[in-house]
């Protein structure tokens, strides 16, 4: 069983610049990062590539069947739902939209199960609607640490607000504060060769 720690991030409108700010402030860390951004298949690869340019960790589109690795960032592709089997294996599946969207943050977060072998962190960032609120509540019930973006720094304070209203949010922070917290939670990793300049 993998001991890889996992950080799952849900985000929608205003996501690209917010993710850029968050990952631009993060060194390579000993955790796998999964981002569920409401995005179309036409834009997902471009968003991943744009984020890869500013992040210390490699950012790729999640592929069906791959296992998460620490120090890597995986973006859920547009148009399908992402689930994690055993909290570590990517499963991409077609299905009805949930909360009007696919991929849905709730679907991804609610696919997580016990036992947890590493640390688990769930984060809901800027976005319209309420996707991610139930997922974050589930993640909290598993023993994870939960964070929501603060109102002031949110482009749209919909998803973080809905998450907060569940009562399952541990910390409310701006992107920089979230980055600082993650740095304290996870030990650093050497910068991957693909990122070394």
């Amino acid at each position: 069983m993998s001991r890889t720690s996992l950080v799952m991030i849900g985000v929608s409108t205003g996501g690209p610049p917010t993710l850029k700010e968050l990952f631009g402030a993060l060194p390579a860390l000993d955790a796998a990062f999964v981002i569920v951004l409401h995005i179309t298949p036409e834009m997902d690869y471009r968003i991943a590539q744009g984020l890869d340019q500013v992040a210390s960790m490699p950012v790729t589109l999640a592929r069906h069947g791959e296992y998460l690795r620490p120090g890597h960032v995986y973006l859920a592709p547009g148009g399908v739902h992402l689930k994690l089997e055993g909290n570590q294996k990517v499963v991409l599946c077609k299905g009805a939209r949930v909360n009007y969207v696919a991929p849905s943050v709730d679907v991804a977060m609610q696919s997580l199960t016990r036992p947890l072998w590493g640390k688990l962190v769930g984060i809901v960032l800027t976005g319209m609607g309420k996707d991610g609120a139930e997922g974050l509540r589930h993640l909290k019930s598993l023993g994870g640490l939960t964070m929501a973006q603060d109102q002031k720094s949110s482009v749209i304070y919909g998803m973080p607000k809905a998450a907060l209203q569940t009562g399952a949010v541990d910390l409310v922070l701006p992107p920089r504060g979230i980055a600082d917290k993650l740095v304290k939670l996870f030990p650093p990793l050497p910068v991957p060769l693909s990122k070394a300049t």
Partner: protein
Amino acid sequence: MPKRVMIVDDNEYVRLSVEIICESVELELASAASGEECLRQLEAGFSGVILMDIMMPEMDGWDTIRQIVARGLYPGNVIVMLTGMGEPDAKMDGVQEYVTDYLTKPFGPDQLIESLQYYLSLLQGGGDGDE
């Protein structure tokens, strides 16, 4: 490669402001005073970053996006919404995945330029996404 931007806003002052800002950094700007005009320009081949006002008479920003998607005109474009409202709009349900960002009016030139350049770089550098 052209660095193209389209402003879709019924307010002439906003269109003019965006035009001045784009000119200052040599971005090519298309201007549309309505959703219908935006659709015509997309059907004529526009591709780039679309700055879309929400509150417009007849066809508002959300309905314009629904038409863009229904007519197959979305690929090759990034949509950034412009709004003067502080609160999210329930009409966004079902189309939020097509809205990459949100700018609140009034926005500063630096903020607009930074957004435009970032999204144009994504459009120009992202390949076709096939793997």
